[in-house]
C-alpha cells in the first residue's frame, strides 16, 4: 500500500506541475459536457437558445465546479499561494524599477557578506586541513626584541626525545628558497622550490600520500646535498608530469644527483597556503637530523602535537625547563628559548585583525542593506495603503492580505538571495585564485553554505519585518484618513530613524576605510631604502658546482661583464637575498668588543657583488661600495647599514673600523637601511659581504637596473649568458616592484575591499535619504501647495526641505562619529602613520557624507519647489 501511496504522491506532484494544462483540460471537458447536453435537448426538440439556457441552468456554477474539481489535486492554500505569486510577479513587473533596485541591493549585500564570511570562515574559523589540528602547536625560538627565530637541529632532536608533553614533533627548514633546486635530465631544465622536511613530517600532520609513500627514518639520515628520495607536490606532479601515475619509482636528476620519486602528495595538502602564503612548492626532500645540519645553526621551523589533556601553557612550562637544561649541557649551540603557540592562532594570527575588521565592515554593510530594504518597503507600502485598504473593504481577509505582503517580501528577498548567490560564487572563486595576495589558506576558500544561509535568512527577515509592522497601521486607519494629505507622525519616525542609522553606519565605515587608506598611502610612501622602479631580478645559479673561488669569481665576472655590455642596462650585480625574502642573521661584534652572552648584536647577512647597490638603488652613505677588485685574494672587507654602524660604533665613523668576522673584516662603507622584512618595519641591522670573498650563500640573483622593457630584457640576458652556461635555466626577470606589491598585497586587499564596502554604504545611505525625502515630499504635496499659495517662495520650500535633510544627516553624523571613535580603536594594530582618532579623516568623511546627504536631499527639494499650487489644490 505504501507503494501506491507513493505513486499517488508522484502523480499529485506531476498534476501540480502541469496544473495549467490540466485546468484547461477540465474546462474543455466541461464545455463538451455542456454541448452534449444541448445536443440531447435539441434532439428532443428544444430550440437551440432554450437548450443552452437549460443546460447552463442545470449545470449551475461552472467556475465553482472547475475549482472544486481542481481542488482534488491541488490544495486550496497552494492555489492561493500561486495566486499570491502571480500577483507578486505582476506587481514586480509593474514596478520594475523598484524591484530591480531591491534585488540589486539585497543581492549585493547578501553576495558580499557571504563572500567575506566564507573567507573569514576559511581563514579564521575552519580547522586546518590536518589530522586533529587543535592539538598542533607552533614552537618558535624567541629571539631578542620579540623576534621569532628558527631552532637548531640539536635542540630539536633533544627536546623531541625528552619532552613529555608531546606525542611527536616535526619540522622543516625555514631556509628554503623559491627556485633553489634544479631539475635537469628529462625535458627542459627547470628551477624548483624544494622544502626539506623531517622524515616524519607528513605522518605527523596526518597527510596520506596520493601515490606511493612518505619518507622513512632511513631516508631522514642521509646528506642534505644528496637526498635519497623526493616527494612531489600534487601541483608539480600535474604540471610537469601530466599526473603520470607511474611516476613513483622513477629517478629524477635534482641538483645534478639522481633521486627517486617515492610519492605524490594529495591535492588537499597545500603546504604554502598554510605555512608560506603566496608562494608555491614543487617537491619535498628529507631534512636529515645530523651533525651536518646541526652545524648550520638555527634552521628549523618546528611543530609539535600535544598529548591529549596537555594545554599550551603546560607544554610551554615543560619546554622552557627542558630548554634551560639542554642549553646548559650544550654551551656550543645557539640559544633556545622555545615559545609555544597554537598552530591555528599562529597561521591566522597575522591576518586575524584584518579579517575581523572585514567581517565587522561587512556586518555594517549588511545592517545598512537591511535598513535600506526596510525603509524602501515602508515607503512602498505607504504608497500602496489605499490599494490595501480597498482590498480589505472588498472583503479580503486580514490574514490573506498579510500573507500576500509576506509572499511579496519573501519573493523579493529570495530573488535578492539568488543574485547574491551568483555574486558570492563568483566572489569566492575570485578570492581563492588571488595568487598575488599572500593571505594564508586562501586556496581553501569555497562558498560556505552556512554563511549563505545566514545572510539569506537575514535578507528574508528584513524583507518581512516592514510588512509585519506596516500592516497594523495600514488597514485600520487608511480608509478613515482618506486622501487628507497629512504626514503621519508614527511611521515617519520609523523611516527617519532608519535613515539616521544608515548614515551613522555609513560614516563608521567611511572613517574606518579612510584611516586604512591613509595608512596604505603612508606605507606606499615609505622610504624603502631601495628604488624598485626599473630594477628587476633573475635567479641565475649556474648548473654546475663551483670547485674553487677562482671558478666562482670567474663566473661572477663573466656574467656581470656580459650583462653590463647589453644596451639599455644601467647597472647589474648579484645578491643572495632579494627584498622581503631571506632573513639569515648572525651575531656580529666590533673587533675588540666583548658582549655578555645573549647580548651580542644580531645583523641580517646579505652576500652581494659590486653593482648590486647601483642596480637596486641603495644609496651609499659613507665610504665606498664593493668593486670588482674585492676578491678572495684581496683584503677582507664588509659594508654595514646605518643601523648596524650606529649599533656597533655609536658616535664614531664606522668606515675604517673592523668587524670580528673571518679573522677581521674592514668596514669600507655605510649604506642606507633597507626595509627588508616589511614596508611597515624598519630593517634592523644589516651587513653586506662581498660575494667574491665568500662561498657562504645558497642562491644567486642577478639584479639589474635597465630601461629595456620585458620580454626583450630576459631574451637578451638569456642570449648573453648562454655561452657561459648553456644549461642555465632562465625564467623571466621579476621586477622588484612586484616584490613590493606582494608585500603590501594583504593591506591593499583590505583597503580595496573596505573602500568598496564604504562606497556601497555611502550609496545606500544617500538612496535612503533620497527615498525618505521624496516620500515625505509626495505626502506633503498639498501642504506645500498651500504654503506656496500663501506666499512661500520656491527657495523657502527648498530651504525647509534641505534643512530637514541636514537635520537627519547631522543626527546620523553625530551618532556615527561616536560609534567610529569607539570602533576605530580596534583598528589600531592595522594603522600605519595615522592615529585611530585622526581628526582629518573624521572631519573629511563627515564632510563627504554631508555633501552626499545634501545632494540626495536636493533632488526632491527641487522637485517640491516646482509644485504648482493651483494644480495640487484643484486635484483634491
Amino acid at each position, binding site marked *: 500500500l505504501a507503494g501506491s501511496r507513493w505513486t499517488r504522491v508522484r502523480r499529485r506532484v506531476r498534476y501540480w506541475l502541469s496544473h495549467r494544462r490540466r485546468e484547461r483540460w*477540465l474546462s474543455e*471537458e*466541461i464545455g463538451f459536457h455542456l454541448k452534449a447536453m444541448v445536443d440531447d435537448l435539441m434532439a428532443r426538440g428544444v430550440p437551440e437558445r432554450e437548450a443552452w439556457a437549460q443546460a447552463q441552468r442545470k449545470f449551475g456554477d461552472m467556475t465553482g465546479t472547475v475549482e472544486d474539481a481542481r481542488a482534488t489535486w491541488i490544495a486550496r492554500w497552494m492555489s492561493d499561494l500561486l495566486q499570491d505569486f502571480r500577483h507578486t510577479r505582476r506587481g514586480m513587473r509593474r514596478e520594475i524599477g523598484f524591484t530591480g533596485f531591491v534585488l540589486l541591493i539585497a543581492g549585493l549585500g547578501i553576495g558580499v557578506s557571504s563572500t567575506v564570511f566564507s573567507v573569514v570562515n576559511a581563514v579564521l574559523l575552519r580547522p586546518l586541513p590536518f589530522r586533529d589540528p587543535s592539538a598542533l602547536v607552533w614552537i618558535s625560538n624567541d629571539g631578542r626584541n620579540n623576534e621569532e627565530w628558527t631552532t637548531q637541529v640539536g635542540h630539536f632532536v633533544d627536546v623531541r626525545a625528552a619532552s613529555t608533553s608531546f606525542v611527536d614533533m616535526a619540522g622543516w627548514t625555514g631556509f628554503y628558497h623559491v627556485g633553489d633546486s634544479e631539475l635537469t635530465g628529462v625535458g627542459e631544465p627547470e628551477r624548483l622550490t624544494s622544502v626539506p622536511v623531517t622524515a616524519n613530517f607528513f605522518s605527523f600532520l596526518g597527510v596520506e600520500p596520493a601515490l606511493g609513500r612518505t619518507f622513512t627514518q632511513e631516508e631522514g639520515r642521509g646528506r642534505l646535498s644528496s637526498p635519497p628520495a623526493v616527494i612531489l607536490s600534487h601541483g608539480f606532479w600535474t604540471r610537469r608530469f601530466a599526473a603520470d601515475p607511474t611516476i613513483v619509482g622513477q629517478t629524477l636528476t635534482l641538483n645534478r644527483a639522481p633521486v627517486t620519486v617515492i610519492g605524490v602528495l594529495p591535492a588537499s595538502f597545500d603546504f604554502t597556503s598554510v605555512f608560506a602564503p603566496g608562494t608555491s612548492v614543487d617537491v619535498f626532500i628529507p631534512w636529515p637530523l645530523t651533525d651536518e645540519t646541526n652545524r648550520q645553526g638555527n634552521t628549523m621551523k618546528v611543530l609539535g602535537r600535544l598529548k591529549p589533556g596537555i594545554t599550551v601553557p603546560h607544554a610551554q612550562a615543560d619546554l622552557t625547563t627542558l630548554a634551560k637544561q639542554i642549553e646548559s649541557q650544550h654551551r656550543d649551540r645557539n640559544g633556545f628559548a622555545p615559545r609555544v603557540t597554537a598552530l591555528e592562532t599562529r597561521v591566522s594570527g597575522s591576518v586575524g585583525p584584518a579579517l575581523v575588521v572585514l567581517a565587522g565592515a561587512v556586518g555594517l554593510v549588511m545592517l545598512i542593506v537591511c535598513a535600506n530594504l526596510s525603509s524602501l518597503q515602508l515607503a512602498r507600502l505607504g504608497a500602496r495603503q489605499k490599494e490595501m485598504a480597498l482590498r480589505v473593504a472588498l472583503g479580503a481577509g486580514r490574514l490573506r492580505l498579510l500573507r500576500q505582503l509576506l509572499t511579496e517580501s519573501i519573493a523579493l528577498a529570495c530573488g535578492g538571495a539568488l543574485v547574491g548567490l551568483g555574486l558570492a560564487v563568483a566572489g569566492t572563486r575570485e578570492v581563492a585564485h588571488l595568487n598575488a595576495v599572500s593571505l594564508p589558506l586562501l586556496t581553501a576558500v569555497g562558498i560556505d553554505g552556512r554563511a549563505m544561509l545566514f545572510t539569506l535568512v537575514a535578507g528574508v527577515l528584513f524583507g518581512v519585518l516592514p510588512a509585519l509592522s506596516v500592516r497594523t497601521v495600514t488597514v485600520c486607519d487608511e480608509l478613515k484618513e482618506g486622501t487628507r494629505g497629512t504626514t503621519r507622525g508614527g511611521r515617519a519616525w520609523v523611516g527617519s530613524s532608519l535613515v539616521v542609522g544608515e548614515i551613522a553606519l555609513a560614516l563608521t565605515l567611511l572613517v574606518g576605510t579612510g584611516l586604512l587608506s591613509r595608512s596604505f598611502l603612508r606605507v606606499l610612501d615609505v622610504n624603502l631604502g631601495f628604488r624598485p622602479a626599473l630594477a628587476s631580478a633573475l635567479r641565475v645559479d649556474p648548473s654546475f658546482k663551483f670547485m674553487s673561488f677562482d671558478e666562482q669569481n670567474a663566473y661572477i665576472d663573466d656574467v656581470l661583464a656580459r650583462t653590463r655590455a647589453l644596451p639599455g642596462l644601467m647597472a647589474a650585480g648579484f645578491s643572495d637575498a632579494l627584498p622581503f625574502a631571506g632573513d639569515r642573521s648572525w651575531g656580529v661584534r666590533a673587533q675588540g668588543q666583548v658582549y655578555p652572552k645573549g647580548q651580542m648584536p644580531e645583523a641580517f647577512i646579505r652576500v652581494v657583488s659590486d653593482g648590486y647597490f647601483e642596480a637596486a638603488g641603495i644609496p651609499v652613505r659613507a665610504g665606498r661600495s664593493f668593486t670588482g677588485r674585492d676578491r678572495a685574494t684581496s683584503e677582507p672587507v664588509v659594508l654595514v647599514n646605518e643601523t648596524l654602524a650606529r649599533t656597533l660604533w655609536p658616535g664614531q665613523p664606522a668606515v675604517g673600523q673592523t668587524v670580528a668576522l673571518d679573522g677581521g673584516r674592514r668596514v669600507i662603507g655605510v649604506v642606507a637601511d633597507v626595509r627588508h622584512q616589511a614596508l611597515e618595519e624598519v630593517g634592523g641591522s644589516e651587513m653586506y659581504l662581498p660575494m667574491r670573498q665568500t662561498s657562504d650563500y645558497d642562491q644567486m640573483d642577478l639584479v639589474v637596473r635597465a630601461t629595456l622593457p620585458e620580454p626583450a630584457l630576459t631574451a637578451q640576458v638569456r642570449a648573453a649568458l648562454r655561452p657561459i652556461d648553456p644549461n642555465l635555466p632562465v625564467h623571466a626577470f621579476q621586477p622588484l616592484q612586484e616584490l613590493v606589491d606582494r608585500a603590501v598585497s594583504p593591506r591593499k586587499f583590505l583597503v580595496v575591499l573596505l573602500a568598496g564596502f564604504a562606497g556601497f554604504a555611502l550609496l545606500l545611505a544617500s538612496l535612503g535619504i533620497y527615498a525618505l525625502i521624496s516620500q515625505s515630499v509626495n505626502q506633503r504635496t498639498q501642504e506645500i501647495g498651500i504654503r506656496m499659495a500663501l506666499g512661500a517662495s520656491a527657495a523657502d520650500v527648498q530651504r525647509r526641505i534641505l534643512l530637514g535633510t541636514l537635520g537627519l544627516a547631522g543626527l546620523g553624523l553625530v551618532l556615527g562619529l561616536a560609534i567610529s571613535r569607539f570602533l576605530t580603536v580596534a583598528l589600531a594594530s592595522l594603522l600605519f602613520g595615522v592615529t585611530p582618532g585622526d581628526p582629518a579623516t573624521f572631519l573629511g568623511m563627515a564632510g563627504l557624507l554631508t555633501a552626499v546627504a545634501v545632494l540626495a536631499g536636493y533632488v526632491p527639494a527641487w522637485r517640491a519647489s516646482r509644485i504648482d499650487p493651483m494644480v495640487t489644490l484643484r486635484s483634491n
Partner: protein
Amino acid sequence: MGTKPRTDLLSGTLDMLVLKTLTRGHMHGYAISQLIQQLSDDLLRVEEGSLYPALQRLELNGWIDGEWGLSANNRRARFYRLTADGRKHLSDEAARYRQVTGAVARVMGFA
C-alpha cells in the same frame, strides 16, 4: 465558500458507480452520467458538480485513466478507462457496500 453538498448519493458511492459504469468500456463524463441515470431508471441523477471532482479524484488515485478522443458526433472529448487498480478497488468497494447495505437492510427488517 464551502464544498457543495453531495445530497443525492452516499459518500463514496458515486466513485463506485463511476467505476462500475466504466466496466462497460471507456466513455466520457457525459456518457457516464447518462448511463448511471439510465441504469437506475432515472432514479439516480449525477450532479455535474460532483461528477467532475469525482473523476479527478479517481484519476489521481490511478483507478481510471483519461485520454482525449472523438465523441460520436466528432467532438473532442475526454474518455475514461478503468485501470487494473481501479478494477480491484471496485471489487473491494462493492464487497464493502454489499456488507453495509446488507447490514442496513437487516436492521431495517427488509431482509
